[in-house]
């Protein structure tokens, strides 16, 4: 895709957006729709951030297209248009397989009620009350109650139920049982609304449509443009420094991580001490590992489900799920229906949670060995669902926290932004430095495709208010 070369962009815009993740793209789109001139700068050669895809061995692999909530339908229609909305389709076969239970579900509320009552023998009244509680949770509720306490209240001693309810959410946003229960309630209810959805046509199609939309609205886009500094003059945002050029803007929206924004792009010394005191408590979420398998053209695999939550661990444990040798992983199966516009292709992506620290310090040899061992474990587990799969695969690739860090620059390669406390920091940046905004995964509830897009809209409203103020 051709974008504007950096030396041809104007020297002044109303707003500059740094980073083209779903949050940055959406914010740019909303600001342009509101009539502001917008420049979008992306360090990578491809737009989309973690909404990424890559080509290898004739296959296209999707990095973060495993599933999102139904809310994407309304959000995409309102903020990106009908063409994007119309490609959203349901993934109907979600499979759980672990030492405690094996089952198949649509991952919707009706189906979970059926499973909790029938399979797990939970009193219907308790199930009802649990759903009423999580459905009613919102940002303004008590933030001290943890998810662990929430589960203990409704399903004491039922580690199997805790696993059913929590494991998918731990994969979706890296949260543990010790986060505020509201973060669980908000995200879980979003999914339970109608199940799990995907984008037909693939991530490349989605990002391509978004780029078309931005260009149609006159947004200038530069890729391969890593912003070095956000410029602050007299306590106000003035623009950015990128590849030796200074570009002016009254508002700068950073889609880099909130920690990267404060530590590297602006610099802690630009903020008041008490703000930095609060900021120092912000923890980033874990990173990820993935193994990508491409099935040789002409071969096929049977339909064993769209998204498989698999584990050999005795019970749910978010710590176990982050270990290098974890036995817990999701398998996303991409059948030819994923990209009906292309020749039939089968790909499979294994995803695991991971800690950056475990991978960062390895020397080249140890890193290579660790990656090979991971690929082997994934093959072994996958063979349980698809016997003989090794012989059908012609392409294997893997990614670790180091990979995610390299492509997004995010602190510790975080896959899902920050823990809950990061949201307040992100929301209050502009109160510290006029015209400085952050958009992107923070606070658990503002992560994932839906969270990032919605947050892009919320921040665009703040920026618009500032620019018209």
């Amino acid at each position, binding site marked *: 895709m051709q974008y504007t070369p950096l030396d041809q962009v104007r020297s002044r815009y109303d707003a500059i957006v740094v980073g083209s993740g779903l949050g940055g793209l959406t914010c740019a789109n909303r600001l342009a729709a509101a009539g502001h001139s917008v420049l979008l700068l992306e360090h990578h050669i491809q737009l989309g951030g973690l909404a990424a895809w890559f080509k290898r061995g004739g296959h296209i692999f999707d990095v973060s297209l495993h599933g999102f909530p139904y809310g994407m339908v309304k*959000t995409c229609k309102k903020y990106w248009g009908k063409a994007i909305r119309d490609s959203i389709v349901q993934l109907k076969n979600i499979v759980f397989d672990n030492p405690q239970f094996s089952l198949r579900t649509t991952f919707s509320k009706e189906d979970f009620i059926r499973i909790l009552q029938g399979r797990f023998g939970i009193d219907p009244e308790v199930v009802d009350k649990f759903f009423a509680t999580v459905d009613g949770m919102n940002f303004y509720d008590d933030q001290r109650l943890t998810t662990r306490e929430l589960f203990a209240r409704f399903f004491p001693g039922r580690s199997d139920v805790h696993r059913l309810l929590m494991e998918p959410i731990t994969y979706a946003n890296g949260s543990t049982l010790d986060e505020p229960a509201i973060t669980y309630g908000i995200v879980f209810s979003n999914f339970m609304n109608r199940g799990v959805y995907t984008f037909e046509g693939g991530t490349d199609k989605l990002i391509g449509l978004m780029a078309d939309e931005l260009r149609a609205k006159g947004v200038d886009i530069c890729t391969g443009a890593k912003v070095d500094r956000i410029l602050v003059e007299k306590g106000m945002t003035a623009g950015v420094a990128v590849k030796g050029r200074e570009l002016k803007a009254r508002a700068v929206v950073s889609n880099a991580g909130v920690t990267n924004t404060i530590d590297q792009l602006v610099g802690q010394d630009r903020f008041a001490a008490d703000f930095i005191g609060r900021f120092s408590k912000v923890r980033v979420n874990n990173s990820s590992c993935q193994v990508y398998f491409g099935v040789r053209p002409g071969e096929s695999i049977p339909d064993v489900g769209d998204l498989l939550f698999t584990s050999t661990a005795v019970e749910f444990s978010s710590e176990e799920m982050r270990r290098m040798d974890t036995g817990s992983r999701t398998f996303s199966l991409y059948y030819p229906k994923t990209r009906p516009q292309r020749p039939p292709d089968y790909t499979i992506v294994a995803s695991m949670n991971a800690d950056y620290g475990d991978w960062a310090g390895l020397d080249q040899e140890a890193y290579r060995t660790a990656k090979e061992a991971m690929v082997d474990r994934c093959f072994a587990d996958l063979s349980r669902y698809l016997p003989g799969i090794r012989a059908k695969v012609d392409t294997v690739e893997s990614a670790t926290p180091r990979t995610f860090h390299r492509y997004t620059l995010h602190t510790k390669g975080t896959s899902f932004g920050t823990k809950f406390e990061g949201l307040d920091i992100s929301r209050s940046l502009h109160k510290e430095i006029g015209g400085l905004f952050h958009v992107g995964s923070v606070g658990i509830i503002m992560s994932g495709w839906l969270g990032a897009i919605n947050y892009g809209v919320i921040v665009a*409203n703040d920026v*618009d208010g500032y620019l018209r103020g």
Partner: protein
Amino acid sequence: MSRDEIKDVLLEIIADIDEEADFASLDADAPLRDQLDLDSMDFLDIVMELRKRYKLQVPEEEYPQLATLTSCIDYLEPKLQKF
């Protein structure tokens, strides 16, 4: 703007946000959220549209005043006098 004109503008903005919105049985004194299936993102859209059209800034603390059609009109009437 008169109260009726403000009402028309509001309904027009809401119709843009939610094509399926049905105003026939709308109770002006009951929360819009419950009757029209509006969520907090929709309210944000209303706020942004009002700013675009009338340069009107609605601070976050005042969002609760947009709860019902009547409370919206009460809130906007003094602010939209000059239009």
